[in-house]
């Protein structure tokens, strides 16, 4: 792998990862979105989080793994309960990480 290959890759990747983040804010802030579009956009966050939660728990290594041997599914349960009960990111993270560490080391 040549030096120029790596630098070209880094610059290319940075362009395609920066533009989609910046352009909508840069271009659209001066316009008023119509109500239906605003409503549609309000569903983006729950939809993205639903997808990411499902993927990160059911496919932690990049392939779908719905098995009782998948520790992520077991750790999901106490974490979800903690999140609903405490509504605290800190406690949810703590419970999730500790559960995972226990599962990893003892099961």
């Amino acid at each position: 792998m040549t030096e120029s290959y790596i630098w070209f890759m880094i610059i290319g990747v940075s362009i395609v990862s920066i533009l989609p983040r910046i352009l909508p804010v840069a271009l659209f802030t001066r316009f008023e979105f119509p109500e239906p579009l605003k409503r549609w956009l309000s569903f983006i966050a729950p939809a993205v989080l639903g997808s990411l939660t499902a993927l990160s728990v059911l496919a932690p290594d990049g392939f779908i793994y719905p098995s009782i041997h998948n520790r992520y599914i077991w750790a999901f349960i106490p974490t979800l309960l903690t999140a609903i009960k405490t509504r605290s990111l800190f406690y949810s993270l703590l419970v999730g990480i500790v559960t995972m560490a226990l599962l990893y080391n003892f099961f």
Partner: protein
Amino acid sequence: MQKQELKQGIHDSIPIILGYLPLGLAFGVLANEIGMSIVQATLMSFLCFTGAGQYIAIGIMQAGGAVFTIITANFLVNLRYLLFSASMVPYLKGRVPTALGSLLSYGLTDETYAVAMSRYQKYPPTASYMAGLNLSSHMGWVLSTLLGALLGSYLGNTERLGLGFALPAMYICLLVFMIKRKSDVFVALSAAVLCLTIGCLAPATMGNLFNVIIATVVAASLGMLFND
């Protein structure tokens, strides 16, 4: 500059940084192994700040793929940020100056997006909060990459510490925070099912995260059918 808002942003970035730590470390180690220098690996994390995209780059390099393939794959993976960024516009409008808001959107990721959106449900956005949250998350990603590239394979297995569950735990909790209407539950569940189904039918989408984009667009559209 509002100091309190900046502080709050930095405070809210702590769980994100905790989640990035093992991922950034691992990226640093892998990048080093594949022949990138410490400077290149760190600079890539600084300039690109795209976890999934950077891992894809490593994978394609390992397979001997072309630069063009890496850039195309990253273009696809990062398309979801168009949606994120657009859905922030109604919140930022009139509260954060456009130029500053655009610049700070450089630090938009799955995680900073989710944390910011859950905050904006209760508090109006400010440039200071955005700066605190995005810049410190970005810094965390860059520093953990640097650390990984420096320490290389001296690091043991961070899975042992349970840190692998930091990001999933964050997604779960933020999902709970984001759900306020019945339609939100419906949208989140549909997106989850769609995303997994698409991933099953077209495994390639698991790698480029196109399943997330399709599931998000379809599920958000289904939400429009609801009347609440």
